[in-house]
């Protein structure tokens, strides 16, 4: 049989997250340790550490990266089904920002500890994870960050907002990694104006970034099993991600 070099492994592991807490994570890696390669931390969307997110992790392994997704809801609901865990975490107010940074940092440390690591790690997040990707890149030594339609990177949450979330405007001067932003022009959070504002702020602070914005697409256009899926935006978006990580990782 011809060796096409596409073997990979994927498994649930335990890593040290924020405060040294042991948390669950899903790790996918190309087979073998022969070629040094970059790593990708995938931050799941608000509905949780689900099948769709794990497919994304495996896709990054197929693209040649060691990839990991920490279960951000592991503390609230260890061993629970992803939807039950998401409901529980939501009921308890969501994921605090400092904990998110610690869990992403622990994930990046794990990737860098692998014998195949070239020392470079990127981060990507979807939906609420888009904001968290930018947040992590403001606090951690990461080599590239991708924000897929994250709300409240800029813009003010309404005064009666149900969870304690703030925008990241005051933290953007500390952004340590080049940022790729992928947005749908029909999205309401972030709006087109908010994406414009983020672009302006990053330019003012001389932060390397590139944004791609898609007509006919709204929020969550990468979600293949949801009505929001827009194949033209998603296919182009994946190509942008491959190109971006190819340059920085």
């Amino acid at each position, binding site marked *: 049989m011809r060796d096409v070099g596409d073997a990979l492994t994927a498994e649930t592991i335990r890593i040290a997250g924020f405060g040294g807490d042991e948390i669950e994570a899903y790790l996918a890696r190309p087979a073998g340790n022969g070629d040094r390669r970059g790593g990708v931390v995938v931050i799941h969307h608000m509905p949780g550490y*689900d099948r769709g997110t794990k497919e994304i992790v495996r896709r990054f392994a197929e693209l040649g990266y060691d990839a990991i997704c920490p279960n951000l809801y592991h503390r609230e609901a260890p061993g*629970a089904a992803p939807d039950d865990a*998401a*409901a529980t975490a939501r*009921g308890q107010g969501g994921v605090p920002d400092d904990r998110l940074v610690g869990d992403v940092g622990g994930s990046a440390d794990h990737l860098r500890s692998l014998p195949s690591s070239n020392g470079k790690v990127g981060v990507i997040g979807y939906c609420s994870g888009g904001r968290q990707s930018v947040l992590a890149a403001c606090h951690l030594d990461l080599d590239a960050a991708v924000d897929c339609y994250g709300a409240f990177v800029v813009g003010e949450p309404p005064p009666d907002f149900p969870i304690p979330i703030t925008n990241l405007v005051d933290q953007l001067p500390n952004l340590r990694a080049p940022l790729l932003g992928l947005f749908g022009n029909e999205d309401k959070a972030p709006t087109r104006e908010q994406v414009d504002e983020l672009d302006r702020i990053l330019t003012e602070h001389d932060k390397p970034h590139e944004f791609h914005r898609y007509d006919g697409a709204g929020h969550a256009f990468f979600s293949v099993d949801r*009505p929001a899926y827009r194949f033209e935006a998603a296919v182009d978006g994946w190509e942008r991600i491959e190109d971006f990580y190819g340059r920085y990782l």
Partner: protein
Amino acid sequence: MCTYQTVRAAMRGSAKGPQSRWFRVTDATVYFDHPVHAMAEHTLNIDLADPARGPGARVAVELTAASARELAAAIQTALDAAPAELTA
């Protein structure tokens, strides 16, 4: 968009949930946001749960906005139609 909404209410009652077992419901969480299963971009989601029994002790429904309004009206109609002394 993610609304991040979370409206909570204390409950007294029961629900039939995992493994077709009844359990006491102590909490309701209501939010209009992305569903897990319903084929709509946003739905009115209700979790009826007993957090003390773990994350799996939950009955979840995801309804379109129109359906949720129909349900709310139906609940109100049923309560209004019952003798007042029973629903006080």
